[in-house]
């Protein structure tokens, strides 16, 4: 009899809290979004699964001795996992379109206004009851506007680890929603004639420029913004390995096995931060709302910057490509291409949008460095 009692006490049924049950549903929703809706499945599937595991009563996944505890301690607390992901992303990134059209860096800069406006917005939200974001919290939330997963996770783990789960979920969800969020804003801010503008073909960029570019980025970053060097440095290392042409086996491993292994662990560890006490609060609603604002503002500022540049440029600029400045590589560039095609069936903007798109990755890594310097 007593043994049955022990078994019953060891079932979760006897120990479930409402919060844990609710968080399991959150995890299930993330799995649904990943598998059925194909929302950034590489991340949201492990995050959702991690959220389920982390909220199982009596299983102890997130306590010392539990697997998620170790993975979080090793990879997120130290910042190593997002940096490895960023190295892999660097190894997958082709800066050719940006080098062919350096002006598009300005679009990647303008779109970061989504980040800084959201920081202001988060502090402003404190005027409402139930919100009490510190400056660090606000900075961590605002990075959602960077539309870049590893950057958001890295910054949140440094500034506001308690909000990490919600921030990562918001960042990846909105990145998946880019095809829904961006087009209305892009269309509202442009005329059909503007959207139909064709751009000149990009010049071919040689290997030497591509090899020197990540080194130039690193040099500027280390001189002017050393707090951004972990992110930018690892990104540039990946890109250098890609372009150097002498370490292809390292570059391929960074793009494939290493980033895959890290992604599984990173996702689980992020999911393990989705606890009821942190996630089931009005703050999370605030984070989701602010994230949407961040994406919208970033998109709008990119487009408006592109319109401004078009006015002063000799060669034609289609303002749509400004929207790609938020990064969300390569989704945002594809959206630009699609909206451009709608306006003009022979207008292929994909390569033109890749420039601001990768510029947006650098821009948000730089913005993260600034936030670390100012509020870290």
């Amino acid at each position: 009899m007593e043994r049955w009692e022990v078994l019953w006490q060891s079932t979760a049924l006897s120990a479930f809290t409402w919060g844990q049950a609710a968080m399991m549903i959150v995890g299930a929703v993330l799995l649904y979004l990943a598998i059925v809706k194909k929302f950034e499945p590489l991340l949201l599937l492990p995050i959702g699964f991690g959220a389920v595991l982390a909220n199982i009563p009596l299983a102890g996944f997130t306590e010392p001795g539990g697997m998620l505890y170790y993975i979080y301690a090793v990879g997120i607390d130290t910042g190593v996992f997002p940096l490895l992901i960023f190295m892999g992303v660097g190894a997958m990134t082709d800066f050719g379109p940006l080098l062919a059209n350096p002006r598009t860096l300005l679009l990647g800069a303008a779109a970061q206004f989504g980040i800084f406006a959201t920081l202001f917005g988060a502090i402003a939200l404190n005027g409402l009851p139930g919100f009490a974001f510190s400056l660090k919290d606000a900075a961590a939330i605002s990075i959602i506007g960077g539309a870049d997963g590893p950057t958001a996770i890295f910054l949140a783990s440094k500034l506001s680890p308690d909000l990490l789960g919600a921030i990562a979920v918001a960042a990846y969800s909105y990145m998946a929603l880019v095809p829904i969020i961006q087009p209305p804003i892009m269309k509202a801010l442009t005329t059909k004639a503007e959207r139909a503008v064709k751009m000149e073909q990009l010049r071919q960029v040689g290997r030497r420029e591509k090899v020197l570019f990540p080194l130039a980025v690193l040099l500027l970053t280390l001189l002017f913004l050393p707090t951004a060097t972990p992110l930018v440095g690892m990104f540039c290392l990946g890109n250098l390995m890609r372009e150097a042409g002498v370490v292809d086996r390292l570059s391929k491993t960074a793009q494939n096995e290493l980033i895959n292994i890290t992604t599984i662990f990173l996702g689980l560890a992020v999911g393990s931060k989705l606890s009821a006490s942190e996630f089931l609060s009005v703050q999370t609603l605030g984070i989701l709302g602010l994230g949407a604002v961040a994406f919208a503002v970033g998109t709008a500022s990119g487009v408006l910057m592109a319109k401004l540049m078009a006015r002063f440029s000799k060669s034609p600029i289609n303002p749509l490509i400004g929207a790609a400045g938020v990064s969300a590589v390569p989704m945002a560039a594809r959206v630009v291409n699609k909206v451009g095609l709608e306006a003009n069936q022979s207008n292929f903007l994909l390569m033109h949008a890749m420039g601001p798109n990768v510029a947006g990755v650098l821009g948000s890594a730089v913005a993260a460095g600034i936030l670390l310097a100012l509020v870290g």
Partner: protein
Amino acid sequence: MQEQLFEAFSIMVTGMVTVFVFLVLLMAAMLVLKRFAAEPFDAESNAMKAAATPTPIQSADDTQRLAAITAAVHAYRHDHESAE
């Protein structure tokens, strides 16, 4: 609250200015690179490089291509045999 709002506003301004300054500097660096490091474009070497670094997507394509080839060869084999 007022104070915190002001601080956030000031971070917003400082941050955007710094982002722009930084990326303008980078743009200048790119123009320098273009002037001093640009090389006549070599179509062949680039094409080869692209072929040499298959992404996972490409290797999936390979599998499909392989399947297509297999099918094609079988078809030929069949035609050939029936032709004899």
